[in-house]
């Protein structure tokens, strides 16, 4: 266990935001509700871009158009989801640090982020060649599958985390 990281978690819990999350009557339930709703909203949208990349839905619509029309909405959801999740973390950082499902969730989030980065910096650069193709190239399909797997893991680990946060 990295002591400096645990100490950082303790400091996070001691912030006024951390105290508010733990002690206010409505702070925690409102943040959890916002976190779950924005997760359902944004992941629910991203899955459809992923399915287009995999080549199983909206195959007659160019990938770039699906991205342009759907992702701005998802980005708003992701921003609020990150803010609410980060705020929740300040209230229970040390418990989360010790929780194995939180670590799984973080790894899955990191995987989703790196996957999106690789897609945008590498795979998407040649999109003109396959934008209208019903079944995109293997690399794009893999990016779609990895994204679906990563977000599924985020949801499962997130729910497991809430059931085990205070289990020693």
């Amino acid at each position, binding site marked *: 266990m990295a002591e400096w990281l645990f100490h950082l978690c303790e400091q996070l819990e001691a912030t006024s935001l951390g105290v508010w999350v733990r002690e206010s009557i409505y702070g925690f339930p409102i943040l959890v509700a916002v976190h779950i709703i924005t997760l359902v*909203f944004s992941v*629910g949208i991203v899955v459809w871009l992923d*399915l287009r990349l995999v080549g199983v839905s909206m195959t*007659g*619509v160019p990938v770039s158009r699906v991205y342009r029309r759907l992702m701005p*909405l998802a980005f708003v959801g992701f921003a609020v989801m990150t803010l609410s999740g980060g705020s929740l973390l300040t209230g229970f950082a040390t418990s989360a640090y010790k929780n194995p499902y939180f670590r799984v969730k973080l790894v899955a989030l990191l995987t989703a982020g790196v996957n999106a980065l690789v897609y945008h910096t590498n795979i998407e650069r040649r999109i003109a060649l396959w934008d209208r193709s019903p079944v995109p190239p293997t690399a794009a399909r893999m990016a779609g599958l990895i994204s679906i797997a990563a977000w599924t893991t985020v949801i499962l680990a997130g*729910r497991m985390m809430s*059931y085990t946060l205070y289990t020693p």
Partner: protein
Amino acid sequence: MSGLGDFFSQIESSSLATTIRDSTILTGTLSGIHLIGLTLIVGSVLVSSAGLAGLIVNDQPVAELTRATRRASIVGMIISITSGLLLVSFRLNMSAATQAFRIKMLMLVVATLFHFLVYMPAARGQRSAVATKLAGAVAFLLWFGVVLGGCAFILFE
């Protein structure tokens, strides 16, 4: 105790319900699967509604555009309703007495009826008609309400 209460108690004491109750991993996994099902429904209805409103493409038949989302919403319903039933199987009497759960169930019934009686036929029909756009928006709001009711149940049960 009422007849319904006795029936709920019988389900609560079944081996399936007690197995779920006694396993944190099983309960947490079912809760995650339940949320995945809801995510699939909300995402499908939202994307489909965008298609119905002409926000994705204007040059393709709407039924073709919404075919996958219609199917996915049904898969999402099967996943979330099955996992939801398993999740409440060991606490049916307590759940039935909770206001948030009652509201969620009412929203679920209304959303499901609207989904099959109004939204699905609209998603097979003509794009850009005001009624079609309205059907998409109402379906989204109803499912959003189900998720909101679920959040309230998680937090205030």
